[in-house]
């Protein structure tokens, strides 16, 4: 598919591109790992759609397949092709910095999307566009505090160890909870790799270990629903409040059924459109804030109707 896009792009460049060269931007994007999860897959198609809507944008869509070395190669390739801007979804926030610096030195603006890079690389990028995961963790902590009315014992099921998003959400959640809600005690955290089946196993063990659990915070809804499954099987779902992040379709439905207290609405479509818009703003020479966060509101049964059901 990416070859097809690249081919289509080059054909377009040959036939139409030359005529409109002064007004057409060529933007290259290298994604982390399309196909491993629904979010990234939806992001990719949303990005292509958004680019189609802007008449004057040609995109080269590449996918690193989760491989840092391949992603660095792709960035070099895009520099060789002299694209106007590069958007990168880093496979690793540290390892991609040298490649980003090369693009910067070649005069090509770089926009980092979705997942942050390490501090050392910030000088070489034009902007970051994506969700504020620390803030998301904090919002989840606020919801947990509301749901438990400031008192209780909770457990946390975190995302993949070492992955920036997972660490930032856990950090935001833990800090906010300690600050705003000292009556709620986080008794234990275990990772489940964004995987529902693993989350289900971890939760089963938590249920054995603790006789009283009042709440569960999961790093995304996929894991949250796994925890809910485990609690339902053990007949203890009624007494536990479930709060997640990155609202998935299953999470949305669980909120609808009243089994799940709340989540954070994070749309891959917004994410993709924001990344493209940021790149276009940079190219147009506009003043763009370095950290460009898009809105990720809290979602509970009260305001569910205001949001479309996620398509992933």
């Amino acid at each position, binding site marked *: 598919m990416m070859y097809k896009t690249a081919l289509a792009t080059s054909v377009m460049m040959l036939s139409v591109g030359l005529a409109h060269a002064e007004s057409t931007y060529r933007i290259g994007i290298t994604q982390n790992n*399309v*196909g*491993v*999860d*629904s979010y*990234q*897959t*939806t992001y990719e198609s949303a990005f292509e759609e958004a680019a189609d809507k802007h008449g004057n944008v040609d995109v080269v869509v590449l996918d690193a397949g989760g491989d840092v070395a391949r992603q660095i190669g792709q960035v070099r390739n895009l520099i060789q092709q002299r694209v106007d801007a590069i958007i990168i979804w880093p496979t690793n926030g540290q390892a991609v910095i040298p490649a980003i610096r090369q693009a910067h030195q070649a005069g090509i603006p770089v926009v980092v999307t979705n997942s942050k890079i390490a501090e050392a690389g910030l000088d070489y990028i034009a902007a970051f566009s994506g969700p504020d995961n620390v803030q998301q963790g904090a919002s989840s902590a606020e919801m947990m505090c509301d749901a438990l009315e400031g008192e209780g014992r909770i457990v946390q099921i975190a995302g993949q*160890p070492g992955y920036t998003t997972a660490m930032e959400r856990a950090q935001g959640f833990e800090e906010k909870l300690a600050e705003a809600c000292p009556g709620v005690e986080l008794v*234990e955290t*275990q*990772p489940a790799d964004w*995987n*529902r*089946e693993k989350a*289900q*196993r*971890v939760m*089963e*063990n938590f249920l*054995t*270990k603790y006789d009283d659990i009042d709440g569960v915070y999961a790093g995304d809804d*996929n894991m949250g*629903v*796994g925890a809910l*499954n485990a609690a339902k*099987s053990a007949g203890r779902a009624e007494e536990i409040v479930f709060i997640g992040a990155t609202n*998935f*379709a*299953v999470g949305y439905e669980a909120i609808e059924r009243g089994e799940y207290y709340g989540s954070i609405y994070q749309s891959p479509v917004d994410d993709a459109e924001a990344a493209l818009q940021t790149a276009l703003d940079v190219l147009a020479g506009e003043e763009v804030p370095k950290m460009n966060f898009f809105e990720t509101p809290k979602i509970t049964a009260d305001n569910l109707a205001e949001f479309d059901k996620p398509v*992933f």
Partner: protein
Amino acid sequence: MASVEQSKQAIMLNKKYKAGLLSFLSAQGILVFFLICMFAFSLFSEQFISQSNIMTVVRQASIIGIIAVGVTVVIIGGNLDLSVGSMLSFSTVLVVDLHDKIGPAGAIILMFALTLLIGAVNGFLVGFMRLNSLIVTLAMLSAIQGLVLIYSGGKNVDIANQSDTWFAFFGRGYVLGIAVPVILFALLAIVVQVVMSYTSYGRRIFAVGGNPAAAVYSGIRKNWCVFSTYLISAFCVACAALVLGSRVMGSQNNVGQGYELLVLAGIILGGTSLLGGAGSVWKTIIGVLILGFIQNGLLLLGYPYYTQWLVTWVIIILAVWLDLANKRKRLFTTHS
């Protein structure tokens, strides 16, 4: 003088006692190790030995266990199957996705058929084309992962009406107070163990794995034997997918990733030789349960993720060492 005699006797006795203990330890190595671990965990965590925890661990271990039963047969036949993790992803995504499209019954039948087809491809390449099983199934591991991504388009699949389908029975149901996955695991293990121990088919698989040349000279159709072991492995994967899909009521397309290693670990812990021709399903079950209890115990003690992995794999190396020591009749060896 008497005291010297006495102390000599005491030393001899001590040596004899030590040698006896060592040989006992090396002979029963893994079982003793298991009991020590269980005892240690139960000291630190009072829930560990509780009935509900034991049932939870056995239920969690049954998915790996069901697959391990099939792979044990492949290994006894002298080959390997590393593709089971990807096959599990494929079969689970398939059965969950088809559930909403053609109904649970059709989904289950079609899933079993396609999983067996993949097993047949493995079996054909290894059994009839005589390709190296490590390479074939390693290649299949990636190829099937690709197939899953193409099929699912990279998206998660979920069963829409989760509370209203009899499909839930296989992963969440109970019969006489015992979880259905555990019953399926036990049934498969018993049937396969009986077939391997008491039928001529089972003896042929052992013969092919132990000494293929001799097996061929004694009139065994080796190709068909190897082919059939991959069908058994695929059938077990299909059963595991049924349990997994029903337990989670949805599937991610990387759900089985890394399971092949856990399956192998369970089999090795049970003492089945990777060289083929020896091994037993019972021992595999013990191996899989040890793995499950160790991970559960570490989690109950609150150890972080990385520690769990470290300890698990150190234990596997220890188990292999004890197994080898048992065969050598000594714990250490300084010459080859």
